[in-house]
């Protein structure tokens, strides 16, 4: 019985983690699809959002979940500036190596994480909200249950909000005109241009949306994680592992990939040991690259076309 309990608890934790990871993956997938760039500074933007939320909490006692309303617009604007003045010019420059855009994001990541270390030091920060240790227990609702499962309140709250945001994004992408333009550009830039889509504007909007997602993810993570500058890189890794598992630029894939990674990490932490988690992430990354280069998205596509 205890084995079952441990397994289920790990599964639930992984699922919730995965839902949150999916947000990171979605942001990265969108940007990747439309701008064809792997944003290696993605996690560092998230780290910035987390610091914003942290300071709002520490200085002004604002609940991290509410900080989204500050962090999201802030990051949106910041992202837009970077996109306009740094990313777009580089897309046009001709040089020997076509990977300049990726290297540029690496430079950005270096600047962000180092500045954060200098100004905020490497100390671990957290936002201990009043309900941090509250939880719902299975036995409260089903007293005769043979096993005990618990859902921590902040985790659940974050997860639910993540799901809400994901659904909101899905509605945005499928039902609104802007959303459809984004999807069109992501599939075929020239065709979108021909159909009157203002590709430059779409690129800006997409980057902004990506930033909003990342800001939200940051605010959802800070109540449950410790914050330190190098966390940015961890989340960037999470982001691109998810996009590879899910399939480059595919939003559906990002969600599924996020869930898979979350569950995988949770299982690894419980059954193999905490120290191997970062390596585990990379191993699954390489495995996905080698065995399933198109990601989950390619599997979905094959099934849709009928084998």
């Amino acid at each position, binding site marked *: 019985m205890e084995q079952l309990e441990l397994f289920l608890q790990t599964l639930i934790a992984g699922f919730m983690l995965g839902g949150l990871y999916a947000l990171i993956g979605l942001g990265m997938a969108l940007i990747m699809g439309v701008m064809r760039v792997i944003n290696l500074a993605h996690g560092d933007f998230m780290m910035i959002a987390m610091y914003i939320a942290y300071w709002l909490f520490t200085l002004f006692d604002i609940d991290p979940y509410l900080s989204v309303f500050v962090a999201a617009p802030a990051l949106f604007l910041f992202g837009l500036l970077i996109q306009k003045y740094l990313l777009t010019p580089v897309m046009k420059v001709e040089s*020997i190596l076509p990977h300049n855009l990726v290297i540029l994001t690496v430079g950005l990541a270096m600047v962000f994480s180092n500045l954060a270390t200098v100004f905020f030091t490497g100390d671990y920060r957290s936002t201990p909200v009043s309900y941090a240790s509250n939880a719902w227990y299975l036995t409260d609702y089903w007293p005769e249950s043979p096993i005990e499962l618990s859902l921590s309140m902040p985790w659940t709250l974050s997860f639910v909000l993540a799901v809400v945001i994901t659904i909101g994004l899905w509605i945005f992408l499928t039902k609104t005109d802007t959303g459809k333009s984004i999807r069109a550009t992501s599939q075929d830039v020239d065709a979108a241009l021909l159909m009157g889509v203002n590709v430059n504007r779409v690129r800006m909007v997409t980057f902004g949306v990506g930033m909003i997602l990342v800001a939200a993810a940051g605010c959802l993570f800070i109540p449950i994680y410790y914050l330190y500058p190098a966390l940015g890189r961890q989340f960037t890794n999470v982001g691109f592992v998810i996009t590879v598992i899910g399939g480059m630029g595919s939003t559906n894939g990002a969600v599924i990939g996020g869930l898979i990674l979350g569950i995988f990490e949770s299982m690894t932490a419980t059954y193999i040991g905490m120290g191997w988690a970062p390596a585990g992430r990379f191993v699954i990354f390489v495995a996905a690259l080698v065995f399933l280069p198109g990601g989950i998205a390619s599997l979905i*596509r*094959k099934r849709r*076309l*009928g084998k």
Partner: protein
Amino acid sequence: MSLIEVKNVSKQFGGLAALTDVSFVLNKDEILGLIGPNGAGKTTMFNVINGFYHPTKGDVFLNGKRVTNLRPHVLCKLGVARTFQVVRPLQRMSTLDNVVASAFIRTKSKAEAEKVSLELLQFTGLYEDINVLSKGLPLGKRKRLEIARALATKPEIILLDEAFAGLNPTEINEQIEIVKKIRTERGITILIIEHHMKVIMAVSDRIVVLNYGEKIAEGTPSEIGHNPVVIEAYLGEEHGA
């Protein structure tokens, strides 16, 4: 024995059938034209022969040997060269270096490769541009560079994919001469995709017609020109300029 035999080749992409059960032969020393409306599957056919695509069904034979799933560079070594519809020069290399790079397939010595390349650049009329970066060449010259590059691999067969698209009338006539000389002076067999009807009729010994991935006709230029099935396939499409 035929030089190339395409036998019952089908190629599917997911649910889309690009080629269905196509068969034809290419005989030594002939110029075979491959025509059809847009989307008929002509370039796909080239990609199958060249090794870029593996056919879903069917086989390709070279001199009687089965070459179906071999990689493009192996096919090149076996004597099948090709040009691309959208020209692909090695942009940051000079015109000469482009051809030298492909000449290396048959020799290890740089001097030998350069000798071969210079001669070919003479042949295709690019001799004054040997030190120009290939991305600085106008379209007509780029197309000739494609041909020079393909010839540098000393092929038995050359697949020309729309080598005449986008050329002005003068360039077209020059190019027709080059194509004819490839056969007569160098003894290379040619399989050519073209939209320009005038070019195809002038240059081909025989023609194969594709439509929607299927072979709908085969014969001499005059037979094809009068074939009602072919004419109907092109209805709504103007004959080439």
